Every structure is written in C-alpha cells, then in structure tokens.
C-alpha cells in the first residue's frame, strides 16, 4: 500500500514517517500479532476451562485465597499509571520533550487498565456473579455495599478507564484528520473520516481542543493517583499484618509510577527501533524519561525501607513471622530478586548517562525492573496469607500452570491491543511534533548555535 502523493509541495515528511505504519503492514507485524493472538487465545481458553472446572485447578486454598491473580491485578493497574499520569504532568508542566512519547504512553494506560480490569473477574471464580458489584437495586431492594473497597475499586477503575480513553482519543482527533487526508483506500478513508469527526483545524476547534486537553490533564491526574491508592486500600483496609499500614497508598502509587515508567521506556525503545523513528525519539528523550524513572526508583526504595525498618524494629509477633519468611524462608529469592531489580541494580545503572541514553541497555534494564515489580506485588499479596492467624492454619502456596497461563494472558492481550493500535492511529502525535517544529528557533550565542523554543 503506497501513500498518497504529496498534496502540495509542503513539508510532509513528518506525516509520511509517522503515518507509514498505518498504511504499510510487514510480515513482522502479522507474525507478532499472530503470536499474541495465540497467547491471548490460550489464556482465554484456560480461563473458560477454569470456570467450568472450578478454582481448585489453581494453587489457591484456604487461607491463601489471594495469589497470582491478585498480584497480576495490582501489577497491571500499576503499569497503567505512568501513561496518563506522566503525559498529564508533562503537558501541565509544558515540557516540550514529551511530544513524541505521550501518545504511546496514553495508549499503554488504556490497554493495561483493560487487562487489569479482567483480573477481579478472573479471581471471582464464579465470574457470572460479577453483576452483584454493579450499583443497581435488586429484587430485595438492596444496593451494592459502597463501604467495601471492592466497590471503590470498581468506581475508581471505571473512572480511570473512561478518563484515559477520552484523554487518549481527544488529542488524536487532529491526527485522525491527517490520516483521513492521506488515506487512499475507501475503507481507510471512511474509517479515518469517522474517527476524525469532521475535524478541520479551525481556530475555534484548536482553542477548544487545547482547553479540553488542559482540563482533562487536570482532572485525570488526581484520578490516576486515586486508583492505585484505592487498590492499595484493598489490602490496607484489612486488619492483616503487613497490609494494615498507612504507608500503602503512597507506596503503591510510587511503585506504580516506577513500573509504568519502566514500561513506557521499554515500549519507546521498541517503537523507535521497529519504525526507525530515531529522528523523533532521540537519546535526549530516553535520558529525560530515565531521569524520572531514577527519581521514582529512589523514592520507591525510600518508602520500602521506611516500611520495612519500622515493622522489623517493632517485632510484633504477627509481623515478624512474615518478615522471617521473606528474609530467609520460601520467599527469600523473590525478595532478593526484587531488591536487585528495583534498587541494587536499577539505581546505580540509571545514575550513568551512558545507560540512560543507550536504548538497548535501557530496554533490558526496564524489563528487569518490571520483573522486580511483579515480584513486589506477589510479595505483598501472598506471604501475609501464608502465615496469617494461628500457626495451625499456616500453609504454603505454589501457583499451578493455570495461573501461569493466566499471567501470559494479559501480556499477550496487551501486546496484541498495542500492535492493533499501531494500525489504527498515528503512534506519535503528529500535530504536537509539528507544533514543536513551528515553535523552534535557533539563536547564535558566541560560537554556538542553540535551539530555542518560542512560547506564549
């Protein structure tokens, strides 16, 4: 599929570069999509099988009723954080370097929330009773229990998903209009015409769009913080050792920002490589993203140490047994790997500019960080339940192949949605890149010619 020839003799290089993935499909795309579809399908079939067989096919048993499913839920909600959050913060701060990254980050949020939202349903076991949590009045004139953190979860995730979808779609409308003008086949033309909503780029349209994006950034930001705080309260509202702590809200939010930033960097590096967008996503952008990740890593470590030290020093019997199984028991390797990934390796490496600007070093590091962050979620959910209550109820927990498959399921699903999105929308915000180029100016200072940005 070839692109439309230039409509006028203008600078359309940006359009052509960024629209290319929408109109050209390589065998690599099909291979990746097929692989993801297979993984997603296998996970879905496993889920359906589990529904029929019952929860005994998992490693869950009394009292360990929260295992890999909940770890996955917290992990995927956490990943969703940085997309919208970082985009909103950078937009409000008018950080110009955000422009090539925001769209990929916002899309990441939507797809990770979609994956996360399935885990409470999977975890229910009897998923068909999900409607109990929806606020409606039943035949006994009873409503859902809004005092339950589960009802808060539902409200928070729905709000965040709706907000993130709107925050992704509205700024994409002007780019859909460009895709509409460049599309050559009738189907694509019609699709992008519908998605562009008749956008023409008039003065009033831009004025309202800019205002709306600003307002959405202001509104979405506190929602993003509230979502992971509420997820943390799923644990913290329970009177269980190592869960019932006031630090959990900020600790979860910071962990979410950290893991989300790591995924943004992984995706940014992969996209840059796959579409040869080195002109748009430069080491400068990777450096900036990595610096934010470094700050998140330091703050996360600070909160983890703060929480650990106080519980360790207090030596309350219920908490000591859980700390002991993390320090030297069955969860020792989990904890060691987590600390290596999130702190001991990540912080010193991110301190070096050479690492921060090296795409491949960053990619491997960020994947390692997310392995550590997944283990962190697992270590929050499981050890407390393994040795909770009287000692005769203490037990062990080993996930089964079902839980393994259900962990592959969201990974495959997320990547599948992401590669589909590549075919549906410009992955880098064209108008924002162009806006940056319009505002760009060069100023000579002594022997140097420096780049400056003209701003209102």
């Amino acid at each position, binding site marked *: 599929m070839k692109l439309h020839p230039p409509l*006028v003799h203008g600078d359309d290089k940006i359009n052509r570069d960024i629209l290319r993935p929408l109109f050209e499909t390589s065998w690599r795309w099909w291979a990746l999509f097929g692989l993801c579809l297979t993984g997603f399908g296998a996970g879905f079939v496993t889920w359906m099988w589990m529904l029929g067989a019952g929860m005994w096919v998992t490693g869950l048993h009394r009292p360990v009723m929260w295992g890999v499913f909940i770890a996955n839920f917290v992990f995927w909600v956490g990943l969703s954080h940085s997309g919208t959050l970082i985009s909103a913060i950078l937009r409000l701060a008018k950080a110009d370097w955000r422009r090539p990254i925001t769209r990929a980050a916002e899309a990441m949020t939507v797809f990770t929330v979609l994956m996360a939202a399935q885990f409470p349903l999977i975890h229910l076991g009897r998923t068909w009773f999900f409607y109990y949590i929806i606020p409606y009045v039943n035949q006994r004139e009873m409503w859902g229990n809004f005092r339950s953190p589960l009802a808060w979860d539902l*409200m928070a995730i729905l709000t965040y998903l709706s907000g993130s979808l709107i925050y992704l779609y*509205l700024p994409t409308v002007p780019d859909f209009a460009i895709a509409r003008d460049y599309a050559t086949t009738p189907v694509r033309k019609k699709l992008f015409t519908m998605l562009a909503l008749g956008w023409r780029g008039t003065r009033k349209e831009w004025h309202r769009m*800019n*205002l709306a994006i600003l307002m959405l950034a202001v509104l979405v930001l506190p929602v993003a913080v509230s979502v992971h705080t509420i997820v943390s309260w799923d644990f913290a509202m329970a009177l269980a050792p190592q869960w019932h702590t006031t630090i959990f809200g900020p600790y979860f939010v910071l962990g979410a920002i950290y893991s989300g930033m790591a995924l943004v960097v992984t995706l940014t590096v992969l996209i840059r490589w796959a579409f040869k967008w080195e002109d748009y996503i430069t080491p400068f952008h990777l450096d900036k993203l990595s610096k934010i990740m470094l700050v998140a890593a330091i703050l996360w470590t600070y909160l983890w140490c703060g929480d650990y030290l106080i519980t360790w020093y207090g030596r309350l019997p219920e908490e000591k047994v859980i700390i002991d199984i993390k320090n030297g028991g069955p969860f020792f390797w989990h904890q060691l790997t987590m600390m290596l990934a999130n702190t001991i390796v990540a912080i010193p490496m991110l301190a070096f500019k050479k690492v921060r600007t090296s795409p491949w070093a960053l990619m491997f590091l960020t994947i390692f960080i997310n392995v550590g962050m997944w283990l962190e979620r697992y270590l929050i959910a499981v050890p407390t339940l393994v040795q909770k209550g009287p000692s005769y109820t203490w037990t062990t927990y080993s996930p089964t192949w079902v839980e393994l498959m259900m962990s592959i399921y969201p990974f495959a699903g997320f990547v599948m949605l992401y590669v589909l999105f590549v075919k549906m929308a410009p992955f880098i915000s064209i108008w924002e890149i162009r806006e940056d180029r319009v505002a760009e100016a060069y100023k000579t200072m002594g022997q140097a010619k420096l780049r400056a940005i003209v701003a209102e």
Partner: protein
Amino acid sequence: MADTYVLARYREVDPAAAGIQRLLGASVKPEDIDVMTGVPYPEEVWGLPESKSNIRKVAAMFWVIGACCGFTLAAGTAWLYPLPTGGKPIVSLPTASVIIYEMSMLMGIFSVAVATLIESKLPNFKKLPYHPAVSDGHVVLSVRCADESSASKVDEVLKASNADEVLRHV
C-alpha cells in the same frame, strides 16, 4: 442562496496573518473569516477576536453534579435500606467520600469531552470548506461571502496578499 466560501492557502503564517488584516481593512466582518491550520497557533497571531469557551464552567458544574450523584449513591442507598450495626452510623462519610470523589471526577471528565464536541460542533460530516493542505502544515483562510460580488472582492484581496492558491467552495 447558499453562501460562497473563498479559500486561500498560504505556506507561511505571516502572509496569512497579513491577509486577514487586509480582509478586515476591506470591511470583511471578523466572524466571516476563519483560519484552518495543522497546529494550534496562539490566537493573537491572527488578530481576530478571541474565541470564547464555556468548557471550564460546564466542567465545574458537572463536577458538583457528580459529587451530588456520588453522595446519593453512597449515602442515599444506605438510607434506603438501613442496616443498623452496633455503634456504627448508617451513613459513613469517610467511605462515602471515595464514591463522591470518583463520581465527581467521572462527571467532570465526561462533561469536558461532551462540551468540547458540542462547542466545536463535532462530529460534523457535512461538506464544509476545507483544504487537505492543512494536514501538510499549510495555513488556509476561509472567508464566507453572501454573494458573488463580495466573493470576487475577497478573491482579489487574498490574491494581493501573496496567497499560494485561492479557490472557491460552494
């Protein structure tokens, strides 16, 4: 009789802005002039009256409505089916505050999106004056003219303002 639109395409911003000043000088009303661009330029660039918007007010109003809905949902339903528990209130404000907060944010977000679309008159799939060069970063002026004589006059003014292309949309 349907309005005629005269479109002028410019490669650069400055001649387009100068073109608008020439049009205003030729007694064309500001509300008949529109500018289409591929990027959002500051409004002052064009020297036209600033666009007004009620999006902020609408969002604030719906934020409050959302908070009321949240309170109704969390507290109202507790009153509808009271479950007295020893020493505990029927309506717990700390727990209701979570629902109030989320509902207010949800309504605020939705209202911003809906208000933006309504104010921008989107979606709109009618054949309105447009030039695809906007997508290439060009600036296009659109001038609404009531009759042919005024269209010809506008045409001349735009040609004199170094437009790269001047055309009609009926």
